[in-house]
């Protein structure tokens, strides 16, 4: 069976004030064509289809267009699960009716949540949707009060969904989680307020023949090729500038072995780039419509650098001048004034404001005065 695995579309996301809906539409066009041409038997979107829990109208409209084309025009079953950016109930709209048309939108954990069997010539392949759920919801759903973090929640969900399946069946997990060992980039929203509690360890996924994962925006494998993040559709932050964005195409044979899994790149309309250098040099570059971040290494003051750069890069989004972040002249080198005595403080103060140093006898006077002052304070 041939499967197209994608994730983290984040439709409706805005990037430094620019609405990326056009870029996303452009790339999704390529995806749809790829699905048609490769003759896949299923398309999996592993979460974060929308960027917000209440997506904008154009995001919804775009998703509608894409899914209609894949499901109805190309007659390919599509499995979509809710991610941490989506609202599960909204994703699960008309879930029951849509399944009749082979569009499986799995969001909330309820009675309709069950494995999805898709058939090839060798029999059924069971797709186990594991939409992103807060541990509290999993706790309520299963009644198991010991679930308090994402790992235990994921374990419970996996138990539940695979409980009706025979052990020898071919199973594919579709999950949205942070598997330990994965590499984050800047644009993911952390799953848990506390640092590492959002992680799920990879050994939970060993019983699946393949795990189609979403959430981390960098396309990567965890351990082996069976556990795969498809990566996001576009580059959503400058830390991802080096990533190769696209979708994963894979094939499962009759025994459930992964026959081939390759990453197919999709080319966006505008790239995301980071440029370093001096203002003069950069202004001589070619004009480009890409989203640029410029790091200026000039040391002196500049007149309206943003305006000038915008002539060359109309879509410049960020400007950094790392050289200007210096230690301000306050106490000079002795920044930590907590450890200075009053006499030292006064000495440095004196120097700063009058430009002269405090002579030895004068220092002695100051020291004596400070001592007397403390005595007086203690006496009060």
């Amino acid at each position: 069976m041939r499967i197209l695995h994608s994730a983290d579309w984040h439709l409706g996301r805005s990037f430094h004030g620019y609405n990326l809906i056009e870029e996303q539409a452009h790339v999704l066009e390529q995806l749809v064509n790829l699905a048609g041409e490769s003759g896949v038997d299923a398309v999996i979107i592993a979460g974060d289809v929308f960027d917000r829990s209440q997506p904008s109208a154009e995001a919804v409209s775009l998703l509608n267009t894409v899914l209609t084309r894949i499901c109805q025009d190309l007659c390919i079953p599509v499995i979509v699960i809710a991610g941490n950016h989506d609202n599960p109930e909204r994703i699960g709209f008309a879930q029951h009716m849509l399944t009749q048309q082979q569009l499986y939108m799995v969001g909330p954990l309820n009675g309709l949540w069950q494995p999805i069997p898709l058939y090839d010539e060798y029999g059924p392949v069971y797709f186990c949707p594991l939409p992103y759920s807060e541990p509290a919801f999993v706790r309520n759903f299963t009644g198991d009060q010991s679930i308090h973090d994402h790992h235990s929640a994921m374990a419970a969900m996996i138990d539940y969904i695979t409980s009706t399946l025979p052990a020898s069946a071919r199973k594919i997990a579709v999950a949205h989680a942070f598997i330990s060992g994965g590499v984050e980039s800047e644009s993911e929203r952390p799953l848990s307020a506390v640092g590492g509690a959002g992680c799920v360890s990879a050994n939970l996924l060993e019983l699946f023949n393949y795990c189609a994962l979403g959430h981390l925006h960098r396309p990567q494998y965890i351990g082996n090729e069976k556990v795969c993040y498809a990566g996001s559709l576009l580059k959503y932050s400058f830390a991802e500038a080096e990533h190769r964005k696209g979708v994963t195409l894979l094939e499962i044979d009759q025994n459930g072995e992964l026959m081939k899994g390759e990453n197919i790149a999709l080319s966006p309309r505008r790239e995301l780039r980071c440029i370093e250098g001096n203002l003069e040099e950069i202004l001589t570059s070619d004009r480009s419509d890409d989203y640029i971040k410029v790091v200026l290494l000039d040391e002196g003051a500049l007149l309206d650098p943003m305006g000038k750069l915008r002539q060359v890069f109309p879509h410049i989004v960020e400007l950094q001048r790392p050289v200007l972040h210096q230690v301000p002249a306050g106490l000079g080198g002795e920044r930590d004034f907590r450890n200075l005595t009053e006499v030292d403080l006064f000495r440095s103060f004196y120097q700063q404001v009058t430009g002269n140093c405090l002579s030895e006898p004068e220092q002695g006077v100051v020291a004596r005065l400070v001592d007397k002052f403390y005595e007086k304070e203690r006496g009060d």
Partner: protein
Amino acid sequence: MRPLLLKITSFGPFVGTHEVDFGLLQGRSFFLIHGPTGSGKTTILDAICFALYGESSGAERSGADMRSDFAAQDSLTEVEFDFSLADKTYRVQRRPRQLRPSRRGTGTAEEPQHAVFYDISPDENQKPQEVALASGWNRVNEMIQKLLGFRSDQFRQVVMLPQGQFRRLLMADSKERQAIMQVLFQTGLYSRIEAYFKEQAKTVEDLALRIEAKKAELLQEHACTSTEELRMAIDKEIGVIASDRKQLEQITKDLAGAAEALGQAKRIAQLFKACAEARHELEQLSLQKDDIERQRRILEKGRKALLLAALENSLNQRQTEYKQIQIEHRKAAMELEQLKMQNKAAQEAYQAETDKEAERYQASRHLHWLHSLTPVFEQYQEARNELAAAEQQRGLLQEDLSQAEAEMTKIRLQREEINNNWQTAQQSALQVEVLKTEVQAQETIFSKRNELEQARQSLAKHKYEWKKAVRQLEKAEQKYNELKNHGSVLQDAWNQGQAALLATDLREGVPCPVCGSLNHPHPHTASGQLPDEKQLKEQQARIDLAAEQLNEARKNAVAIEIKLRLFEEKTLRLEAELGDKGSQTLAALRQSLELSRSKYQTTMKSASQEGQWAQSLALLEEGEKLSFSRLERLKYELGQAEQECASTQAIFSERAQHLPQTIIDRETLQKEQEQALKHCEVLAQNLENARLLAEELNVKLSNTATRVDSLLEKTNQARLHFDNESLLFTQELHRAGFKQQAEYEAARSSETKLNDLEVFIKQYDLRLHSAQDQLARCEAEVHGLQPPDLAAIQTRHEQLQTERDRIHAEFTLAEERLKKLNNDLITVGGYEKQLEAVTGQYRVLGRIADVANGKNPKNVTFQRFVLGALLDDVILRASERLSRLSKGRFILNRSQDLTRANAAGGLNIEVYDHYTSTTRPVANLSGGESFLASLALALGLAEVVQSYSGGTYLEAMFIDEGFGSLDADSLDEAVRILFSLQEQGRLVGIISHIDELKERIDARLEVKKSEFGSSLSFHVS
């Protein structure tokens, strides 16, 4: 300051008591307060602010306005807030001024504002305790301010970023910011050091001035203005002293001479004086001579009179005696008269009493009669008692009788009832059998109907199947026909093909293999496709298959038809058996069956009870008999009792007649008896008394008469004595030489006086003699001497004396002055030295103090400098965050304009925009940008404060709205940064209505609004 628990009652939109337990956050440091508009989100922050400072968070709502409009009248608005600070836990309770219903009467009374502050840290054994630290609105405010370090407006700028006012810290001018940072970092120390330096410098300055003043004063005293002049004055003084000394010596000598001369003259004068005195005295004494003679004569006479005094005394005595006795006599006579009269009265009274004999006799007779009544009365009493007893008995019997009758009727009723029941039970027994048979019949009908139903159902099913089979048959037939047709077509084609094949071999003149003809006018041509053997065979096979299938289908159809007929028969049979019952539904039949069954059950039950009823009926009849006999007995007894009553009544009335009407009981009788007795006694007593009185008075009369007589005699005797004595006295008087009584009176005087007079005379004689002697002596002494001129000598002496004194005084004065001048010179020298040292000190100290207080080229005071450094630190951290929030566009800087001479400047903040490389004042930022800047500043400030151990504790921070002004990206970034604060253990609470935050933040305090007030619920997942 870390909040632990907040309890609010009737505060804002909250009715009743609501609790916010921050412990539920379980270590999470980030939580969201959300709810619809007006539900009371800001009120929670108001409550915290109010609990701590008595004001609301925006300072727009006053404490008294916070009372909930929904609250019940008797529920008081109160806020209780527990928080921890350093290692201790505290609780503060506050109630604002409010009206409540008065406890007495109607109307409202004002409940005054009330605040208490407790320390509730657990003690050494970890047990919670409550120690009140302060109470009273202002005291609590003071204490909390001291503990937290903030005033309320500073608190609102740093810990709470209230709605619409978060920009205050950002926009504050230097002075305000200085005040806040002073509090936060406790740099008050430095300002105190500044002040101390200044003070010290001033002290030193003052000291110098004082020394100077003292020196000038001292010099002034000597009318000098400098030390030189002073020295000159000293020298002058020394010269003056020397001359004075010489003068003094001279005059002392002169004075000694004058003194001697004076002594001499005095002595001589004294002698002359004494002489003159003696002469004078003698003359005086001579004048008194005549006077003295007279005195001598008086003395003589006095002595004589003394002797006569004794006689006079005894005469007076006699006179008094006589008078006394006269008075007594008179008194006794009067008494006698009185007694006579009394005696007469008493005799008359006695006579009267004796005449009352008849009355006495009457009284004693009455008494006897009364005594005789006593036994009669006893009998009467007895009869009355017996009557009462008999009546009581009768009463009891009557009661019993009525009771017995009631019982009787009751039993009768019961018996009738049970009789009825028994009869009905008998009837039921008869019916039982009938019902049983009916039930059985109904059961059979019901089962038959059931069967019918089932048969009908199978009939229907089989009909359906038969139809299906028929259809299938038709289909199979059709298929078979089709195939057959096609087969024949194919066969034809093949045949034709064969024919065509054969036709190809046809040659003219060669005979046709089929018919043998030699002419072939129309040889068959192949048309279209020729099927081959295989195809034909295949078709045949298909046809066969189809034929088989057809057979199968036919067989199936027939079998089903047979079954169908069977079911039809069965159905009809059952219908006939049931007749019209067949049309009734199963349910109705079942119902009627049930009914009959239940009827049968009840009848059975009632029949079984027949035996019981019979038994109870027998029992009751027996009871009835017993009760009837008892009734008869009681009636008989009652009759007896009536008789008894009548007889006793007769006796009673007879006895009553013997008694007088008025005496109805024992007490009255006794009282009458007593009264009569007393009356008798009284009469007897009166008689006796009168007799005694008369006797007594008689005796007294005779006694008094005798007394009067004796007294008269005594009087006469006394008179006699007196006359004798007076005669004697007059004789003696004449013998002593006094012609008249008056003379004697005048000469009489006491013995002591006479003695004195004698002494006086003697003294005079003595004096006279001594004066004479003295005179003789003095005259001898002054013989030949002259009286000196004392006055002149005296004056001379005195003059010299005064002169000498004067000069001596001058001399001592001059010496003193010299001494003083010398001392002063030394003192002045000392002052000069001191002044030098102090001036030197002041030079250094003054400079330092001036510099510390801002008198330096940069116009920055010491404290301001330290604050400046701190502010730089804060701005650095804030800048980091702002840069992240604005994606590297903005950073914060400290504004460097120190051109103003005012030492209060230098703490202003400005924003630097990287994109345009210009600075903007913070007032120019847009709403969302300024929110980000304020947030960054607050976070930076909190971080820096936390890291300075001298600083106050900022463990909590609240942000009220403001997120609405951010776009999606900035909101994301802001929330991300706030999340990152969690690692630093600070509690951050935000109020926002934005839905997205609701889904991203897992610890939420939801405020729900309803028409009865708001309510709170904590959701922590």
